[in-house]
């Protein structure tokens, strides 16, 4: 499964604990990690412990959670350990949970505004009157930048973009730094030489990348950036905490660059080229001493994966808007634009070359009208996409997140008619969902999961306990009771569980 976000966040989890502690020194980072990465149950635990003067014994924590939710509880605790938010201490002779001091202090500071860390940005007070920027302008700027990056990637694919992209007003060509980054992440491959002008070719990962929702894309790119930070002689943790800092800023306000140190200044100029912040230039080409975060920045730590938070739809729609002036008027209300029928026909109310190019990755486009593209999904078109490295889930999530309001309304009407509230009616027709999956299964009959095989257990009880534990914390991938073997994709939790079990057995 080529899920780049998860890869990215797991990258964060691989940082050593000391780096985490440094990261947590900034309240903005602690707040962002808390909000973005923890499950609701984990958040509950953190808040429970935040102002508690003493560690909370494990047994007492278990009392808070229903028996049926043991799995979620174990997962939440494991997650908190992975992010170095919880640590095990012994309190009155019993095993207990405590928050790591750096995280606790920072989160408390974030909530109360105490301390003097200034981690939430200093609003610039002296913005010249003529240089004030409206939110609409910021959105437009972010859209141009981001669509420029995506357009660059897609435009270099086998499906050529139409010439409208190169018109003025249209998306900007990404900066060399961005191209370098895309290359480093194997999202594109460059061929040709510097002197002749390079041609870029999108890779499988690149296809997967462009179909994801914007928030995921940005994070994927930002993690690439962090990963490569040391190449640019910057510290990973500094870069990360600066990213979290930017994500905590408020849209539409100018922030002063005065409190930023040198690394942060450099980061800032890179973020400008992503379209995440906007920094006006003086007449002589040097940047002014304040900057605006765009919507891409302020939604960084929002939880976009919950269908559609309001902010994400806004940026999504503004990004899916065509830049050409013809659709400016019509795109005001539309958030989604794709209608899929049960007969695999697809109608997309868009004239954005980028969106059309994306659609053409897995749809046979039939006709094009001033604001409408029609096409049909077929086995060959979908399998062509799958061959190019796009998964069925990515296609489906793309179609779902860009579904026309009419389809959403229809799905909700179905839902309301439904007597069983547990049954969620999907926005796309069920036949389409199934068929796309089936088409994928025709090609993909094998999935690979890196992990650890545990075997040679002396007796059934020794096998049973860690196996059940692995299932509870959600790392169990496969098991065979007869052979007493099971396979996990993460070993840490299971290892400590088994060690503890052994210790208990001996002691």
């Amino acid at each position, binding site marked *: 499964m080529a899920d780049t976000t998860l890869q990215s966040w797991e990258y964060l989890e691989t940082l050593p604990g000391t780096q985490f502690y440094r990261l947590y020194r900034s309240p903005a980072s602690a707040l962002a990690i808390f909000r973005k990465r923890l*499950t609701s149950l984990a958040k509950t635990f953190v808040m429970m412990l935040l102002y508690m003067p003493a560690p909370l014994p494990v047994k007492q924590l278990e009392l808070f959670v229903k028996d049926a939710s043991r799995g979620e509880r174990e997962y939440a605790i494991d997650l908190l350990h992975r992010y170095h938010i919880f640590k095990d201490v012994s309190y009155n002779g019993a095993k207990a949970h405590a928050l790591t001091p750096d995280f606790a202090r920072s989160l408390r500071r974030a*909530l109360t505004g105490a301390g003097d860390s200034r981690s*939430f940005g200093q609003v610039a007070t002296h913005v010249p009157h003529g240089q004030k920027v409206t939110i609409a302008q910021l959105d437009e700027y972010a859209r141009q930048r981001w669509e420029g990056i995506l357009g660059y990637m897609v435009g270099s694919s086998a499906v050529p973009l139409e010439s409208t992209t190169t018109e003025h007003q249209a998306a900007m060509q990404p900066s060399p730094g961005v191209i370098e980054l895309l290359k480093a992440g194997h999202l594109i491959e460059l061929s040709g030489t510097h002197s002749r002008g390079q041609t870029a070719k999108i890779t499988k990962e690149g296809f997967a990348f462009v179909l994801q929702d914007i928030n995921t894309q940005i994070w994927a790119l930002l993690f690439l950036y962090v990963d490569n930070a040391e190449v640019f002689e910057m510290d990973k943790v500094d870069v990360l905490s600066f990213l979290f800092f930017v994500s905590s800023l408020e849209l539409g306000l100018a922030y002063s660059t005065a409190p930023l140190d040198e690394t942060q200044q450099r980061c800032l100029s890179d973020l400008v080229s992503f379209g995440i912040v906007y920094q006006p230039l003086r007449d002589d080409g040097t940047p002014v001493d304040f900057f605006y975060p765009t919507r891409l920045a302020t939604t960084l730590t929002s939880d976009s994966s*919950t269908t559609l938070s309001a902010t994400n739809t806004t940026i999504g729609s503004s990004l899916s808007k065509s830049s050409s002036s013809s659709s400016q008027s019509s795109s005001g209300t539309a958030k989604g634009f794709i209608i899929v029928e049960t007969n695999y026909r697809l109608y997309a109310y868009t004239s954005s070359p980028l969106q059309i190019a994306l659609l053409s990755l897995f749809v046979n486009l039939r006709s094009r009208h001033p604001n409408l593209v029609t096409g049909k999904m077929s086995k060959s078109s979908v399998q062509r996409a799958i061959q190019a490295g796009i998964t069925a889930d990515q296609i489906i999530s793309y179609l779902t997140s860009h579904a026309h309001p009419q389809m959403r309304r229809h799905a909700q009407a179905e839902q*309301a008619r439904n007597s069983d509230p547990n049954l969620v009616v999907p926005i796309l027709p069920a036949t389409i969902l199934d068929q796309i999956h089936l088409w994928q299964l025709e090609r993909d009959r094998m999935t690979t999961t890196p992990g650890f095989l545990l075997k040679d257990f002396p007796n059934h009880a020794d096998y049973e306990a860690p196996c059940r534990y692995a299932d509870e914390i*959600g790392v169990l991938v496969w098991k065979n009771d007869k052979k007493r073997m099971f396979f996990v994709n993460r070993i840490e939790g299971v290892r400590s569980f088994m060690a503890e079990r052994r210790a208990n057995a001996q002691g």
Partner: protein
Amino acid sequence: MNAVDGSDHFGRASHDQAPSLLTIILDTNPAAWSLLSSTLPFSSAIANILVFINAHLAGNYTNKVAVIASHCDRATWLYPTPTEQKPPPPRSSSSSADPNNRTADGASGVRHDLSESTKRLKLNPHDANNDHDSSKTPLNLDSSSPSSLETGNKYRPFRLVEEEVLQNLTALLSSTTPDAVSRSPTTMIAGALTLALSYINRESIAYAESLIGMTAAVAETSTTGATGGGGGGVSSSTTTTGDASTNSSLQSRILLVSVSPSTDLAHQYIPIMNAIFACQRLAIPIDIMQLPLPTQQGQQPQPPKQPTNNNTSTTNTTTSNSQSTSSSSSSNSTVFLQQAADATHGIFIAVQLPSPSPSLSGSTSTSDTPSTSPSSTTTTKASQAFLSYLLASLLPSPSTRAAHLILPTRIDVDFRAACFCHRNVVSIGFVCSICLSIFCSVPDNGDCLTCGTHLSLGRYGARPVVVAKKSKKKQHSAAAK
């Protein structure tokens, strides 16, 4: 291969968090808070509530909050500030003729009052007359000090909420006259609940619209009526907690921080009950946090009927209906609020303040606590205990609670009702067979006061008799035919 698929399940669960709207109703009754000032000063309580609000907002990018003050003579917004009205200015002494009238007709009445008060904006000569509240108005929070405004020590959404709440609260308190406080010792819970409900309804509709886009939600929900609107799919089954459809609707809940256990809420019985039923139907939990008044009248869950007047009834004398209510008022508020929490699957917590449990008092983290009152250790402890209650029990969103948590519920809920004739709290009464109104004694003439039906009382007062077997048989045979 795919038989065990745990990781996938968890991957989804980690992001399954719908936005949630927290509506806090804060009982700002000055008389009650002044009694509490030795243990938990109002300013530190507010500071803790603000931290709690921030914690709620921190949980999710799309979480929302609303704060309503249930004051001694009216219910008013603290956050968000009503658009047309900057500081809530009313000269309450002039307008608060009878609190019963206003709360009885619910939100429209309160709204009307608010808009009326805007017309009298800046006509308030009573600013200097706030000596009664002078002990409470200085809210020396670190967040309100101007130095932290622009330096960026505070996440900006947090700061905006705090500033607005503090500003509105200060305005509310400074506009409260001693006269108004002495006139009505109660607090306007019913009005505040109704304000909260109308706000929740509006937000739910707005959220549903933002999900689908356009006006589909309005068309769909308008069929269920004005109060039943926002719930949509949730309200189809009235008593379930509505956790199933978390994705499609805004999760709302109400937190009521109540400090006035001695108030006679009985005269607001009907509007409160209506609000409770509305919440029940919309699957909105009402959480109650009951702060105890200090020992002078004992801890609050009192035995129900005490014939003596309790000590706050000295302020009670001017109200018209005090003759019977004051007798049983000491437990009224907990009665109805317990029922509110129970009926709506909320949490009822009777706080024990200067905490006897040692685990909360040995403070290692006081350096960062927002308790700003620098006074004795009991207040620090009390405010810390207060915050711990808030964060540990009342923070999780409704869906998390329903799915995973064991709630600190109260089992022995007092289900007594208030009669419609004298607002007495009764455990055995008379019930109209037509409209189910409750009376503590037989109404005059046997006519129901609510629906006017003439009720024949039969042999009231006769001792119950075991019904003879014969009649039962007769019924059976009659049914068989």
